[in-house]
C-alpha cells in the first residue's frame, strides 16, 4: 500500500519533470520519454499492488483481461501513430484526446452506481467527470473531423441560443443528480441522459468554431480531459490521477492562452466570436 503511494508520487514527479523538459527544444524528446516512464510505472504498480476497500488485490483473471485490453489499445495506438502522415498529426492528437475523454466519461458512468445516496461530494466529482469527459470526447471528435476535412463549419445565428440552452439543461440535470436524495440505482436513467446531453453539447460547442481555430480548441479540450481525469482521481482518492489531471488542466489552459496570443486572438474571441459575426475566423 505504501509502496503503491510511493510509486504514484514518483509517477507524478515524472509527469512534472517530463512536462518541464518538453517545454525546451533540446530536451523535449527526453521529456516525453520520462513522462511515459511515469505512466508505465503507475500502470504497473496499480495492476500489481492495488487493493479495493475490502482489502482484496486484483485477481489473476482480471489481470489477464486488463493486459489484453491494454495490449489491444497499445497496438492500435502505436500503429496509427507510426503510420499517419506528418500533416495529419494535429487531428490525430485530437483523436487521442477524444479517447481519453471517453475513458474518463466511462469510468465516471460506471462508478456512479457505487456512490452512496446523499454523499454529495463524491457524486459531484463523478457528475463533473462525466460531463467534462463526454464534452471532451465528442468535441474532440468534431475537431478531428474538421481538421481531417470530414466535418465542415456550421454557423447559424440560432446556435448561440441553442448552445446556451443545452449548457443550462446539461448543468441543470447534473445539479439535479448531485442534490437528489434518491439512491444512484434509481437514477440510472438520469446519468445516461446526462451522458447523452453532454455528448450533444460537445458536438454543438465545436461545430460553429472555424477550422483555423481548431488547434486552440483542441488545446482547450485537452485541458478538459485533464480535469476529467482529475475528477475520476477524486472518485478513487488517487494522487497520481489528481496531480496528473490537474497538471494537464492547468498547463493546457495556459497553453491555450499562449496559442491564442501567438495567433493574435483572444480565447473569448475564438469561442464566442465565431458564434456571432466572426466570419474572419473561418479558414
Amino acid at each position, binding site marked *: 500500500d505504501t509502496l503503491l503511494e510511493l510509486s504514484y508520487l514518483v509517477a507524478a514527479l515524472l509527469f512534472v519533470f*517530463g*512536462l*518541464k523538459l*518538453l*517545454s525546451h527544444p533540446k530536451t*523535449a*524528446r527526453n521529456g516525453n520519454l520520462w513522462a*511515459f516512464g511515469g*505512466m508505465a510505472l503507475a*500502470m504497473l504498480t*496499480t495492476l500489481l499492488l492495488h487493493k*479495493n476497500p475490502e482489502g482484496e488485490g486484483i485477481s489473476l483473471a*482480471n*489481470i489477464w483481461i*486488463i493486459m489484453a*485490453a*491494454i495490449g489491444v*489499445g*497499445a497496438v492500435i*495506438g502505436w500503429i*496509427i*501513430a*507510426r503510420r499517419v502522415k*506528418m500533416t495529419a*498529426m*494535429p487531428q490525430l*492528437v485530437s483523436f*487521442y*484526446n477524444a*479517447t*481519453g475523454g471517453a*475513458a*474518463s466519461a*466511462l*469510468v465516471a458512468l460506471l462508478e456512479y452506481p457505487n456512490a452512496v445516496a446523499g*454523499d*454529495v*461530494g463524491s457524486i*459531484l466529482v463523478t457528475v463533473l467527470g462525466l460531463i467534462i469527459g463526454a464534452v471532451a470526447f465528442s468535441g474532440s471528435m468534431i475537431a478531428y473531423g474538421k481538421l481531417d476535412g470530414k466535418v465542415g463549419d456550421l454557423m447559424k445565428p440560432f446556435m448561440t441560443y441553442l448552445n446556451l440552452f443545452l449548457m443550462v439543461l446539461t448543468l441543470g440535470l447534473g445539479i439535479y443528480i448531485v442534490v437528489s436524495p434518491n439512491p444512484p440505482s434509481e437514477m440510472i436513467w438520469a446519468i445516461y441522459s446526462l451522458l447523452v446531453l453532454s455528448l450533444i453539447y460537445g458536438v454543438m460547442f465545436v461545430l460553429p468554431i472555424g477550422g483555423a481555430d481548431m*488547434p486552440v480548441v483542441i*488545446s482547450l479540450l485537452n485541458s478538459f*480531459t485533464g480535469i*476529467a*481525469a482529475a475528477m475520476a*482521481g*477524486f472518485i478513487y*482518492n*488517487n494522487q497520481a*490521477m489528481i*496531480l*496528473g489531471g*490537474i*497538471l*494537464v*488542466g*492547468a498547463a*493546457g489552459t495556459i*497553453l491555450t492562452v*499562449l*496559442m491564442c496570443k501567438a495567433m493574435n486572438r483572444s480565447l473569448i474571441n475564438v469561442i464566442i466570436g465565431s458564434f456571432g459575426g466572426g466570419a474572419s475566423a473561418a479558414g
Partner: protein
Amino acid sequence: MEHILQYFFEYKEAIFIIALSIFLGIEVISNVPAVLHTPLMSGANAISGVIIIGGIILVGHADLSRFSLDLVLGILALIFGTLNVVGGFAVTDRMLEMFKKKKK
C-alpha cells in the same frame, strides 16, 4: 452545501495537491517557444491518459463471473485510455523527431 464543505474537508490533502499542481502547471509551461506548442499539447494530452489507472482499478475489481454491460464498457474504457497513453506518447515522439531533423 455543508455536505460539499465536509467533503472538501475530508479531502483537504487532495485540495492542497490541486492548488499546488495548478501553479506547477502554469510555471512549467510559461516560457515555452511557439514551435513547441503542438508537441507540448500532444505530450500533455498523453499525460491526461492517466485516467487509465481508473480503468485498471475499475476492471481490476469487476465481477467476472457473469457477463454484464458494465464489464464491456469498463474494458472499452481501458482500450480508450491505452489509445490515449500509447498513441499520445508515440505521436509526440514522432513530432519531436521531425522537429530535430528540421533543425539540422
